[in-house]
C-alpha cells in the first residue's frame, strides 16, 4: 500500500514537474530564437552580460561610429550649403542691385537652385530613413512570436493574446507609415514649405497648418496607442497574476506532501521566465535603439547644418534665404518626428511587454 502511495506521489510530481523542466528547455530555445532574429548589422551577444552591452558606453560607441561613418557626406553637404547661404545672402539687404523686385527674383532663383541641391542631398537620407524603419518593422515582426512564446511560457496567456494583438496592430500601422506615408509626406512638406518660403503668400500658411496638424496627430495617436496598450496590459497582467496565484495555491493545497514543492517550482519557473523576458525585452529594446540611432543622428546632424546656415543668413539679413532654409529645416523636423514616433511606439510596446505579464 505504501509503495502504491509512493508511486502515485511520484506520478503526481512528475505530472506537475514535467512542464517545469520542459519550460526550462524552452527558455534556452526562446533565447536562441531571439539571437537568430537579431539583424546581422547589430552586434549583441546574449551569452554575456546584457546590461554591459546596452550601457552608455555602447550608445556612445554607436554615436561615434555613426558620426565617423557619415561625417564626410555631412561635411560636404554643410560646406556646399554654407556656400549657397553666402551666395543667397549676396542677394539680400546688402545687394548692390537697387531694384527690389529684381533683388527678390535673384533671391528666389538662387533659393530654388539651392533647394534642388538640398532636396537631392536629402533624397538619399530619406531613403535610408525608410530602410531603417523597414528594418525595425521587420525585426519587430519576427519578434512578436518570440514575445508571445515568452508570455505563454510564463503563464501569462491573457497578456500574450493582448500584446500579440496590439503588436500586430502597431506593426500594420508602422508598415503603412513606411511604405505609403513617410516619403510622400516628406516630399509634400518640402515642396509646400519651399513654395511657401519663396511665394511669401498663403501657401506657407497652408504648409505650416498641415505640419502642425500632422504633429498634433502624431502626438495624439502615440498617446492614445500607448495609453490603450498600457491599460490592456495592466488588466491582462492582473488576470494572469490571479490565475497563476490560484494555480500555486491549488497546487500547494491539493497535492499532498509535495504540493508546496510544486508551488515553489512554479515560482522558480516564473523567476526563470522573468529572466528570459528581461533578456529578450531588454535585448529587443537595445536592438531597436541601435537600428534607429544611426539614421536619427544623421537627420539631427543635417538639421544642425541648416541651423548654422540659418544663423549665418539671419546675421547677413537675407530674409529669403532664411525662409527657404527654415522651410527645409521644419520639414526635416516633421520627418524626425515621424521617425522618432515610430521608434518610440516599438519601444513602448516592448516596455509594456517587460512590465506586463504574470509576476507569479
Amino acid at each position, binding site marked *: 500500500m505504501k509503495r502504491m502511495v509512493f508511486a502515485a506521489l511520484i506520478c503526481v510530481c512528475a505530472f506537475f514537474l514535467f512542464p517545469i523542466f520542459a519550460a526550462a528547455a524552452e527558455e534556452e530555445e526562446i533565447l536562441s530564437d531571439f539571437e537568430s532574429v537579431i539583424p546581422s548589422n547589430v552586434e549583441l551577444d546574449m551569452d554575456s552580460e546584457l546590461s554591459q552591452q546596452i550601457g552608455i558606453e555602447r550608445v556612445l560607441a554607436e554615436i561615434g561610429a555613426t558620426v565617423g561613418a557619415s561625417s564626410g557626406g555631412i561635411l*560636404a*553637404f554643410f*560646406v*556646399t550649403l554654407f*556656400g*549657397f547661404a553666402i*551666395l*543667397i545672402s*549676396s*542677394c539680400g539687404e546688402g*545687394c*548692390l*542691385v*537697387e*531694384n527690389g*523686385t*529684381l*533683388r527678390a*527674383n*535673384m533671391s*528666389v*532663383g*538662387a533659393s*530654388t*537652385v*539651392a*533647394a*534642388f*541641391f538640398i*532636396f*537631392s542631398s536629402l*533624397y538619399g537620407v*530619406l*531613403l535610408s530613413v525608410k530602410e531603417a524603419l523597414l528594418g525595425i518593422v521587420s525585426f519587430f515582426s519576427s519578434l512578436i512570436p518570440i514575445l508571445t512564446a515568452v508570455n505563454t511560457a510564463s503563464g501569462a496567456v491573457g497578456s500574450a493574446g493582448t500584446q500579440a494583438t496590439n503588436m500586430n496592430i502597431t506593426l500594420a500601422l508602422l508598415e503603412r507609415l513606411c511604405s505609403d506615408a513617410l*516619403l*510622400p509626406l*516628406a*516630399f509634400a512638406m*518640402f*515642396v509646400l514649405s*519651399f513654395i511657401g518660403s519663396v511665394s511669401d503668400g498663403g501657401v506657407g500658411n497652408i504648409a505650416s497648418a498641415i505640419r502642425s496638424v500632422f504633429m498634433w496627430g502624431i502626438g495624439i495617436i502615440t498617446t492614445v496607442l500607448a495609453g490603450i496598450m498600457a491599460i490592456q496590459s495592466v488588466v491582462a497582467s492582473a488576470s494572469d497574476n490571479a490565475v497563476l496565484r490560484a494555480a500555486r495555491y491549488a497546487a500547494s493545497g491539493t497535492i499532498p506532501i509535495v504540493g508546496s514543492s510544486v508551488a515553489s517550482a512554479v515560482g522558480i519557473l516564473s523567476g526563470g521566465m522573468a529572466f528570459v523576458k528581461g533578456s529578450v525585452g531588454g535585448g529587443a529594446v537595445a536592438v531597436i535603439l541601435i537600428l534607429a540611432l544611426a539614421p536619427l543622428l544623421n537627420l539631427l546632424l543635417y538639421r544642425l547644418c541648416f541651423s548654422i546656415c540659418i544663423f549665418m543668413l539671419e546675421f547677413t539679413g537675407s530674409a529669403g534665404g532664411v525662409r527657404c532654409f527654415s522651410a527645409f529645416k521644419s520639414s526635416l523636423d516633421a520627418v524626425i518626428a515621424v521617425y522618432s514616433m515610430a521608434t518610440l511606439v516599438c519601444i513602448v510596446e516592448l516596455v509594456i511587454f517587460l512590465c506586463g505579464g504574470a509576476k507569479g
Partner: protein
Amino acid sequence: MIVKACALALLIALCAFVLRELGWRGAPLFCIIGALGIITLILPDISEAVSLFSSLSDEYGASEAGRSVLKIIGVGYLGGVCSDICRDMGEGGAASAVVLVTRVEIIAIALPHFLNIIRLGGELIV
C-alpha cells in the same frame, strides 16, 4: 586696388564736373564709362572667387547647382547695374525692359532645377 578705384573715381568726378561746367552734354556718358572702368578693376578678384566656388562645388558634387546660382547672381547684378545706368540716363523704358529680361533669364535658369525637384519627388513617391 581700393586706392586705384578711389583715385579713378575722384578723377572721373573731377573731369565730369569740369566738362559739365564747360557745358558739354556728354558728361553723364563719360561718368558711366568711368564707372564701368572702375568695375573692371575688381573683375580679376571676382573671377578668382568664382573659380574658387566652382572648384569647391565640383569637389562636393554640386557643380551644376553651384554654376546655376553663380549665373543667377551674375545675371541679376548685370541686369541691375544695366537698368540703373539706363535710369540714370533718363531712359526708364529701357531700364524696365532690362529688368524684365533679367527676370525672365533668372526664371529660365532656375526652372530646370525646379522641374528636377518635381521629378525627384515623383520618384520618391512612386
